[in-house]
């Protein structure tokens, strides 16, 4: 049985997550085998890519059902967070529905926001095991054009034009919009916290 499984699908940037785990002294397997995913102690669902293509890929392989049924701690990163939500505005995509929240696009026009939201931004109002020992207003690294609205499942908030969900949690499902694997010491801490969740 493997300790950490990273779900293999067509939305990439897995290398940097693997490297971050290595820096924390952990190894992981990168797999789309449902049995290996089910049996792992932790599951990480990273992703950089486009929502509808990624969802179709997951559905074709039955991984959408596998993910929804997972019982162990699961961490979605970036597109992973968005796919855990109900629906994404990105190509009008029905997502996994683990979090009861919709994903919208930042509005570049009205608020003169630069989109994508790229760079280091602060975490506010955070709570829960992922953020143990993280100082208030810590900076983490974001790269995204779509965001999950701040609702009851939000366990961290970041402001870009308006507040959005920087992290979500429901039961054993955790998700972060930023990239902990690229967020310096704060990111290392958050990943390490995820690995230590009981």
């Amino acid at each position, binding site marked *: 049985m493997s300790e950490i499984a990273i779900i293999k699908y067509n939305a990439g940037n897995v290398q940097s997550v693997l*490297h971050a785990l290595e820096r924390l002294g952990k190894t992981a397997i990168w797999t789309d085998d449902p049995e290996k995913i089910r049996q792992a102690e932790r599951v990480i669902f990273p992703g950089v890519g486009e929502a509808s293509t990624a969802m179709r890929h997951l559905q074709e392989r039955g991984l959408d059902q596998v993910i929804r049924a997972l019982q162990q701690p699961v961490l979605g990163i970036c597109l992973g967070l968005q796919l855990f939500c109900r629906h994404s505005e990105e190509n009008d995509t029905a997502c996994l529905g683990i979090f009861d929240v919709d994903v919208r696009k930042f509005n570049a026009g009205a608020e003169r926001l630069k989109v994508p939201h790229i760079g280091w931004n602060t975490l506010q109002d955070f709570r829960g095991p992922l953020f143990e020992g993280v100082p208030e207003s810590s900076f983490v690294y974001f790269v995204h054009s779509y965001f999950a609205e701040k609702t009851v499942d939000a366990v961290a908030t970041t402001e870009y034009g308006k507040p959005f969900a920087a992290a979500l949690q429901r039961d054993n499902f955790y998700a972060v919009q930023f990239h902990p694997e690229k967020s310096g010491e704060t990111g290392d801490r958050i990943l390490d916290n995820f690995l230590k969740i009981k």
Partner: protein
Amino acid sequence: MLAKRIIPCLDIKDGQTVKGIQFENLRHAGDPVELAEAYARLGADELVFLDITATQEGRGTLVELVRRIAKVLNIPFTVGGGIRSIAEVEALLQAGADKVSVNSAALRRPVLLDEMAKYFGNQCIVLAVDGRPNEQGEWFAYLNGGRILTENRVLDWVREATERGAGEVLFTSMAHDGTKGGFALDITRAVSEAVSVPVIASGGAGEASHFLDVFKTGKADAALAASVFHFGEIQISSLKNYLFEHGISVRK
């Protein structure tokens, strides 16, 4: 609040950094991996590696170097220099680069930006533009590290490129690069207002106040510099303190 980014740029040739980088407490100042780690510790928000290797063998070395950097670096980094094909981009991203920058190849064949964005998403595509004003003060983009003038006006080109798929613009004023007299504020501001993606300003950094100017007046989202950091003329931590005291959001 979103922080303004400070980005050191490292020139790479045959897998080593070029220009006599003077860094204390480094055993091998020419080793990009060790230097990258040092910059991350010192508070750099991101790094750019610009490959100036001319040969094909050197390109293979670059991919291997990117792999080594990705293993140790816990902040984002961009790789650029002579990239002209989807296959090259794929190799660099798979090796662990967060973004790639394209310059001449996109000017020669703009549809490359559409293709790159389609395959990899615009968040990892940085359009690098080298610009210089003509005698009438109109800014044009240059090819091949600034050697060949094109017919592309800078503002038209950045608009087109970001519509095609560039997710960020790295604008270098060749008229200011190396002068240490400050960034090109007016054109940087015009670029920043012309596009809806983040803009990295480059060329001309000599002292801390230049960074303040390019964020406040130039409306840049990030500022890139090389020699002032490599030679220790500006410490990143004191630069950030200075910017913070002057009301700029920085990551400390």
